């Protein structure tokens, strides 16, 4: 059970990190004030 819990929590962390990339990219697109 613990193995599955740690596997799941690791996956969740990395999914959050990918979502975080998406968030930063959205901010980048919305906030670009030059080119």
């Amino acid at each position, binding site marked *: 059970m613990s193995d599955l819990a*740690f596997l799941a929590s*690791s996956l969740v962390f*990395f999914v959050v*990190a990918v979502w975080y*990339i998406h968030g930063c990219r959205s901010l980048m697109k919305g906030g670009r004030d030059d080119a």
Partner: protein
Amino acid sequence: MTFNGWLQIAVFFALVLLAAKPLGLYMARVYERKRTWLDPVLVPVERLLYRLTGVDADAEMRWTEYGAAMLVFSLATMLLTYAVERLQHAIPLWNPQHLAAVEPYLAWSTAGSFTTNTNWQAYVPEQTMSYLTQMFGLATHNFWSAAVGMALAIAFIRGIARRESKTLGNFWVDLTRGTLWVLAPICLVYALALVSQGVIQNFKPYDTATLVEKQTVTAPGTDGKPVTTTVASQTIAQGPVASQEAIKMLGTNGGGFMNANSSHPFENPTPLSNLLEMFSIFAIPGGLCITLGVMAGSPRHGWAVFAAMGVLWFAGVFTAYWAEAQPNPLLHGVDQQAAMTQPGGNMEGKEVRFGIANSALFATVTTDASCGAVNAMHDSFMPLGGMVPLTNIMLGEVIFGGVGAGMYGMLVFVIVTVFIAGLMVGRTPEYLGKKVQAFDVQMAMLYLLIFPLIILGFAAVSVLSQSFGTSSLSNHGPHGLAQILYAFASATGNNGSAFAGLNANTHWYLVTQGVAMLAGRFLMIVPMLAIAGNLAMKKIAPPSLGTFPVDNTLFAVLLTGVVVIVGALTFFPALSLGPILEHLLLRSGVAF
């Protein structure tokens, strides 16, 4: 402090200085895919690896793709290490001591620790990890996590150097070339040099030595009552140490094969091996300053960054050496002056063969970088001596720093410095011709704020709870606070050194430190890559009267000031309640 001590410190830095240019130029050629003398041997290996893994070496990646590839690689290798730890008892290879499977909490924390280049060890390696786990699960991570850090630093440098580009390179190519061309060849030679000094490399079962004099030991039994036993023999751990030691230091990983780390005579037997180990921590980070200058087209800028790092390093080593060379005011009637027959000062927790200068230097270097190896116990340093490694980590480990991680961390500070300089003169801030604008500064602040948020947040919760927080402490009062702060700073900064004294092998500390390590690595990398991606897309403006030069002494001084001020503003209140208060109370005769 002695002349001999300062001479050894000067020799160390001279070596770092001498190696920086050739190594930096070499790394620039490696990452720019120019011809090197190792190509005839390594290019076929590289091509084979790409063919086997299906990597298109000519494909370029946007910063989001670069970041996603790095995350996928890190997740896959983390899970692989977790599996090796959990299954080591069932694998009939290189487990002569028949060590059991690693417990799940510890296995997860350790897998995260080595994936993030932290190498925090909440366990005794020689009693917990089989040779297979040490080599395949942990030493491989020492290569991978170091190569990932270097790849990310190079991606940032490309962001500065490229103009109107949407891409930062190819993560898989950078990872492969950093491993094959930089880390592996140096480690091959370095490991043999360590063996020549007496570092062991074998697969033998542990030896047993009969003690010349039997020892009587009293310790709490299972029921809590004291039990006295007589010890007549001692187990001497063995293993493939040299091969792991080399990358442990060169890759600024720091996780020891033995629990005593680089104070163990099998890991670090002689003053020469000690010098080599300290030098190898700074070798690549120092070289990367030159790589920055070459790839960004401003060699003097690389040297300016090197100079800022050098000044901060010297401030740390001076303070640590001075603090440790002082007599302990609580030891009355004891001769603590340095002489031909004694080192003087505070020798508690230090190896006699290294003495005070080399212990203070090692502690400074290992925490300037994100290495975390130790040759002395930082918990036994005088309060201000122990504050130096803690402060180094809290400054973000940008003083040469971890391989790659130190460079990209310092470059984030460069962005902030250029921004502040722009505000001072009332012009649009420019960094090597690139305008630094709102998004860049937002991402830089995100990078800088995540770090203290994790450290101070977890430390605050820990000190509030006796049941799961302060119960792990061996000392209380300001020293106990320093132990907790150090643990979370070390984890979040991906340093991995322990202040010692804190039992981190509890569910609370294993889980929170695991989260701190992962967040301190990956949640800081993302905004850094975003800055790089944004910079790469910009035009390069020609220098004008309003351009702030980043290749002179003024810039180096300003950069140094920004690093210190950001760190001081963030962490000074915590430090004042920890080591500074402990120092003042020690002077009043109070110890913890």
